[in-house]
């Protein structure tokens, strides 16, 4: 396979993966903000169904990962680009904590918010724009933040 063909094939895979992901989110109920909030509402009328979303996804993907580990490389690229760090640090937990607060306030995480854009709901569009702004600004401020977390 020439590099050009390989790159095209990777593009097709990415597109297809995105479509399947969007469909999966909608089928699973992740694109209904109040359902997500119902899942996070452990203390009043908890809706456990989103546990099954993670359960179903992990069941499939864990098996795939296990099978892939016997292979030297993915089919269409030179190597698996997978995080290898296993240590916990303040950044990870602080970031996850902040993300969780936003998730609980809006009922959206990044994937379902983007998949909801075709509804043209003002809240979904506003959420995505604010998310992009937050992500961009944080990346820009990252060197400062890293120093602050290293030397509090």
């Amino acid at each position: 396979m020439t590099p050009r063909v390989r790159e095209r094939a990777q593009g097709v895979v990415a597109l297809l993966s995105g479509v399947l992901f969007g469909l999966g989110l909608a089928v699973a109920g992740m694109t209904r903000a109040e359902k997500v909030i119902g899942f996070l509402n452990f203390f009043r009328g908890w809706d456990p169904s989103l546990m099954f979303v993670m359960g179903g996804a992990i069941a499939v993907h864990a098996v795939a990962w296990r099978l892939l580990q016997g292979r030297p490389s993915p089919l269409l690229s030179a190597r698996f680009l997978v995080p290898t760090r296993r240590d916990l640090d303040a950044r990870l937990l602080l970031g996850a904590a902040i993300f969780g607060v936003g998730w609980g306030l809006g009922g959206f995480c990044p994937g379902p918010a983007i998949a909801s854009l075709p509804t043209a709901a003002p809240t979904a569009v506003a959420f995505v724009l604010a998310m992009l702004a937050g992500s961009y600004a944080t990346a820009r401020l990252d060197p400062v933040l890293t120093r602050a977390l290293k030397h509090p």
Partner: protein
Amino acid sequence: MDIPLDWIRALQGGALIGLSASLLLGLNGRVMGISGIVGGLLAPSAGDVAWRALFVAGLVGGGLIALAAMPGAFSAGSASLGMVLLAGLLVGVGTRIGKGCTSGHGVCGISRFSPRSVAATLTFIGTGALTVLLTGGGAR
């Protein structure tokens, strides 16, 4: 015993999500983490843009197909516009600092038994639940 339809749909949708993550990893060698894929588009580096843009286009396309086939699968909740802007901002900031969201940590990372992803997932579900508790079941 009757299994609620919602649980079955959740499992089916989850399996589709697992399949899409497996395709991206097994063929392209990439982790299907949405905040990371989108984050890479905000600071583009040469040769690393097309697949990200195509994935996001596919995600929007998948949403469009789903909207046509099952419009009831979407609802944007009852939070006010101001609250949603704050929520989006926090999600953008948090996923960038913590290097991942529900897909990257919650699905892909846990599938690889990554301790970092397990810790991150427990943390964001914890603070999400706390937020919902403090806002009385959904911010407005």
